[in-house]
C-alpha cells in the first residue's frame, strides 16, 4: 500500500543524503520524494511516498523521527490532506493530431507550454490518478519524453 509522509527537516547539506540513505539501508521502497523550501527559511519540507504495510510504515516514521535533523514527521494516514503532482509531457503531434491533443489537454485542464513541428509539450498538475489517466490517453499519440516532479502534500485546514 502507498503512504504519503511529510517531514520537516533542517535545511542544510547532507540531510537529503541522510534520509535517502536511511530508506535504502532499511530496505524501504520510495515511490517518490520531493524537497522544497517552506515558510521558514532554515526548514525544508520533504514529501515521501512509500510502499509497504502498516508495520513498515510505522518503522519508517519512527526511523525518520529518530534523526536529529528531522524536526517533525506527519503521516497522512489519519488526516485529510491535499496532494499534487506536476507532469511535463512531450507528445508526438502532427498537423492532423495536434487539435485532438489540445482537446484532451483542455478536458484535463492541462496547459500547452511548448510546441514544435512534430511535437507539443503539456503541463498538468493534479492527483496521481488524474496524471495517470492523462498519460494513458496520450499514449496512442506517442510519448517522446515525460517527467513527474513527485508528490507534494499538505494537511487541509488549520496548521
Amino acid at each position: 500500500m502507498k503512504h504519503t509522509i511529510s517531514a520537516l527537516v533542517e535545511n542544510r547539506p547532507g540531510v537529503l543524503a541522510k534520509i535517502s540513505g536511511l530508506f535504502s539501508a532499511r530496505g524501504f521502497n520510495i515511490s517518490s520524494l520531493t524537497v522544497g523550501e517552506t515558510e521558514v527559511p532554515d526548514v525544508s519540507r520533504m514529501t515521501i511516498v512509500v510502499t509497504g504495510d502498516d508495520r513498515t510504515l510505522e518503522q519508517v516514521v519512527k526511523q525518520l523521527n529518530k534523526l536529529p535533523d528531522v524536526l517533525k514527521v506527519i503521516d497522512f494516514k489519519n488526516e485529510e490532506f491535499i496532494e499534487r503532482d506536476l507532469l511535463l509531457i512531450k507528445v508526438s503531434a502532427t498537423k492532423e493530431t495536434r487539435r485532438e491533443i489540445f482537446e484532451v489537454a483542455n478536458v484535463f485542464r492541462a496547459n500547452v507550454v511548448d510546441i514544435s513541428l512534430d511535437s507539443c509539450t503539456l503541463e498538468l498538475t493534479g492527483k496521481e490518478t488524474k496524471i495517470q489517466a492523462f498519460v494513458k490517453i496520450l499514449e496512442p499519440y506517442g510519448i517522446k519524453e515525460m517527467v513527474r516532479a513527485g508528490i507534494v502534500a499538505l494537511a487541509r485546514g488549520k496548521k
Partner: protein
Amino acid sequence: MELKGSEIIIKCLEKEGVDVIFGIPGGSVIPLFDKLYSSKVRVILTRHEQGAAHMADGYARASGKVGVCVATSGPGATNLTTGIATAYMDSVPLVAITGQVATHLVGNDAFQEADTTGITRPITKQNYLVTDVRELQDTIAKAFLLARTGRPGPVLIDIPVNIQNETCKFDPHKKNIEIRGYKPTLKGHPKQIRNACDLMLQAKKPILYAGGGIIISDASKELKKLAEKLNVPVTLTLMGIGAFPGDHKLFVGMPGMHGTQTANYAIQNSDLIIAVGVRFDDRVTGRLDKFAPHAKIIHIDIDPTSISKNVSAHIPIVGDCKVVLNQILECLKNKKIEANKTKDWLKKLDEIRKQKPLTYRKDSLLRPQFVVETLYNLTQGKNVIITTEVGQNQMWAEQFFVYREPRTFLTSGGLGTMGYGFPAAIGAKVARPDREVIDIAGDGSFQMNIQELATAKVNGIKVIVLILNNRYLGMVRQWQELFYGKRYSSVFLGDLKAREYWPDFKKVAESYGLIGLRVEKKKDVEPAIKEALKAKETCVIDFRIHEEENVSPMVPGGASLDQILELA
C-alpha cells in the same frame, strides 16, 4: 576571546570533561595535534586508527563517559570506521574527530581525501562537516550531547585543516546547547505503566529479559528490585551481562543461539516477557515466528525504533530504563503481590538448570572452558573487567565466568568485531586503572589488532591477554563441522604441512618488551594466570587448547529456540 579552531577544539574537549583521547596524527590534523602537545588532555598514540576507536569505545563502556578518538582525513578516517560501526551497534557514546582536506579542496579528490561524512552516515548517530570556524564550538557541544544522551552512540565531526587554523570568537561561558529535532523521551506513559503492572501481577510464568539498556541507564539496582519483588526469573542478553548478578538465584543465564537451556526454555514457555533495554536481536530470538509463542510482551526501550521492529509488543513503553523501572516500582508499591504465583515456574526452571547446565568435558585435554573457569576461580570475578574478541572465545568468556556488576564485561555484541577485545581492554584500563583488565581472546581475533601491543608497552598500560589458541577461526570451523560436512575451508591458521603454530605469541609479546607465556597442559593454567595477575606489564598467555572444541549448547541459525543442540 579570539582563538584558533584547533584551540577551540581543545577548549571544548576540556569543557566536556575529556581527559584522554586515542588517535594518530596525519596531514589534516597537525594543527590540532600541535595544540594537544601543550594541553592537559592525555593523548594515547595508537598504532592503527581502528585500535584508537576501539580503545575509546572500551574507555566509554568501562567508565560510562564519552570516549574520544582522533584521526586524519582519508585513510585515517576510513580506518576508524569499523570501530565507529562497533560503537553504533552497541550504543556506545563516542566522539570521533577527523581531519579533512582544506575546504577549497573538498570534492576535488585531493590527497588523502575521502567523503568521511558520507562513509560514516549509516554508522553514526549524527555526523558533521564543519565548513565555518564559527560553527565549531556549537558543533562539538552538539556532538557530545548526542553521543551521551538518549540512546547513546558515536558522533563524528569532520574538520577541514584550514578551519583548525582560522580564528574566531570563543565563548567559554556558553550555556548548554539544544538541538531542536532531538528530544528523547525519558518517562514512560503512565497508562502504559499501569497496564504493564497489571500484566505483571497476573502472570504465572513471567521472565525479565534485560539488556544493554540497563547498563547504559544505570538501572541494575532497579532491575534487581523488580525481579525480587515479583519473584521473576531474569535472563540477560550478551550486552546486558553484568546488569544482574550472575550468581543470583533468579538468574537463568543468557538466551539465544548459545544461551542456556534454562533461559531458552523460559522464553519459549513464558506467558509474559518483560523486555527492558533490549532489541530482540536475531541471535536472541532465533526463528521469529516460533519465538515465545505463549507470551505477552512488555517492551521498554528509549529508542522507539527498537520497539515492535522484530517482535510486536503488546505493551510498548518508550522511556529510559531506569526512569521507567522506577515508575513501575512506584506503581507496584500499593499493589498486593502474590509471591507464590511464580513458585511452580521457578521450580521448573531450577530443575532444567540442574539437568542441563552449561558444561564441558572434564578430561586431561586443555579445554578453553577450563581456562576461563580457572580465571574466575582465581579472581572470583572481583575487581576485574573482562573484554572479549568475537567468536568462540566470546561465548566461553560469557558462559564460564560469573559477572556480578555492570561495565565488567565488554564485548562487541551487535557488529561482532574481531579485533575488538584487545584495544578495548587498553581503553578500559585507562578508564579504570584500579581494575585488572583481561582480554579473553582467540588467536584469529587477537591478530587483527596485535599491533596495539606497542601502545600498551609504550604507555605503560597493563592488561592481560588470554589467547584460547586453537589455530582456527573457531566459530566458522564449528559451523563448517556441523553444517558443511566438516569441509574446513580457509579456517586453519597454522601451517598445514608442518602443523606448526604461527606466530609464536610468546615471542611476539617478548619482541614488544612484554611478558609472553605459553601453556600446553592443564596443570600449568593456574600458575600462568597467577603470574599474569602479579605482573606489572602487559602479559600475553598463549593457551594451546584442544583444537576442535565447540561452543555448546547451540541453536542453529534460523531455527527456533526449542531446537537446541548439545555439543559438549
